[in-house]
């Protein structure tokens, strides 16, 4: 009895060895225990039952395939995100249509009419200078036109020569 009391004291202090714990368990399993120890019997039985208890359904392990499926989803989301950001970046940086504006003394003026008038004026200036400076060339072209009848005369001469040659052959 004293031995069991000692063991119980040690047990509750957490100082028992495995052999001593087994000794206690065996004592409480047997029907020879004293009445004063009956209080502890229920506790030790419960421990016994729990240690023998097995789960009805074993805990399912996460199979590697499931992991793969999970990874695919993450990849799909990542790729979609990248594609979306690329589309957004392209949309934001799409080449802008050239607009009509003028910058006068460093100030931007969004005036289409002014820009068009200014362009027209400048292009007319170029046309004028070219017209004036190209006048001599125009004269050369006119001379060329004036000489066209002479060219016709030479053509007639060539044709006459051909006819003459043919007649001589005959």
């Amino acid at each position, binding site marked *: 009895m004293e031995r069991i009391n000692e063991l119980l004291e040690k047990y509750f202090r957490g100082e028992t060895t495995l052999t001593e714990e087994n000794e206690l368990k065996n004592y409480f399993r047997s029907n020879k225990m004293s009445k004063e120890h009956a209080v502890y019997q229920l506790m030790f039985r419960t421990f016994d039952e729990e240690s023998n208890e097995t789960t009805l359904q074993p805990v399912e392990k996460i199979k590697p395939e499931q992991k793969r499926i999970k990874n695919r989803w993450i990849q799909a989301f990542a790729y979609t995100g990248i594609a979306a950001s690329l589309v957004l970046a392209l949309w934001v940086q799409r080449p802008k249509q050239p*607009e009509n504006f003028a910058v006068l003394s*460093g100030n931007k003026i969004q005036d*289409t009419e002014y*820009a068009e008038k*200014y*362009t*027209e004026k400048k292009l*007319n*200036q170029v046309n004028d200078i070219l*017209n004036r400076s190209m006048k001599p060339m125009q004269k050369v072209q006119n001379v060329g036109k004036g000489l066209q009848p002479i060219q016709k005369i030479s053509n007639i001469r060539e044709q006459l020569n051909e006819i003459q040659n043919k007649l001589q052959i005959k």
Partner: protein
Amino acid sequence: MKKMLTLVAVLFFMSVTQAQTLQSLFEKYNDDERFTYVTVGNGMMNLANVIGRHEHPNKNKEMVSKMKSIKILTLEDGNTALMKSFMQELDKVLESGKFETAIEARDKGEKVHIYYRLSAKDNADMLIVTRDKSELSLIWINGKMSKEEMLQTFSCNGNSVKIEEIVS
């Protein structure tokens, strides 16, 4: 990894040391207070009567529809020092941009130089430089057209001279 870094460094160096382009020249001076900058991209059809000098108005419209943009940069205050340095920069741009001279004309102190280049398939740039004592203008016309079509821009009416015939 080392090769990659070297390649990146070379590319970076090349981009930094790249010669000035016509675009960068315009960008450099378009906000400058001493210059006037005008750009026309939309509604170019309104300029059809000035740009195309064809006998047939439909041909003019067709020609103008091929143009993408016109940019004009003008220095008006007769700042000869600035004009000189600007012309030096322009010469470098023309040389590096492989522009060819189409026309050089001069009348009473006014000079017109027309340059062109074909940068891609039928993508042409025409640069007109007009200059007198007090004013310098750069007119840059960009469009999807052939050399002949581009030169027709300043061909005059039937009675006058056809530039494209002279150049070719």
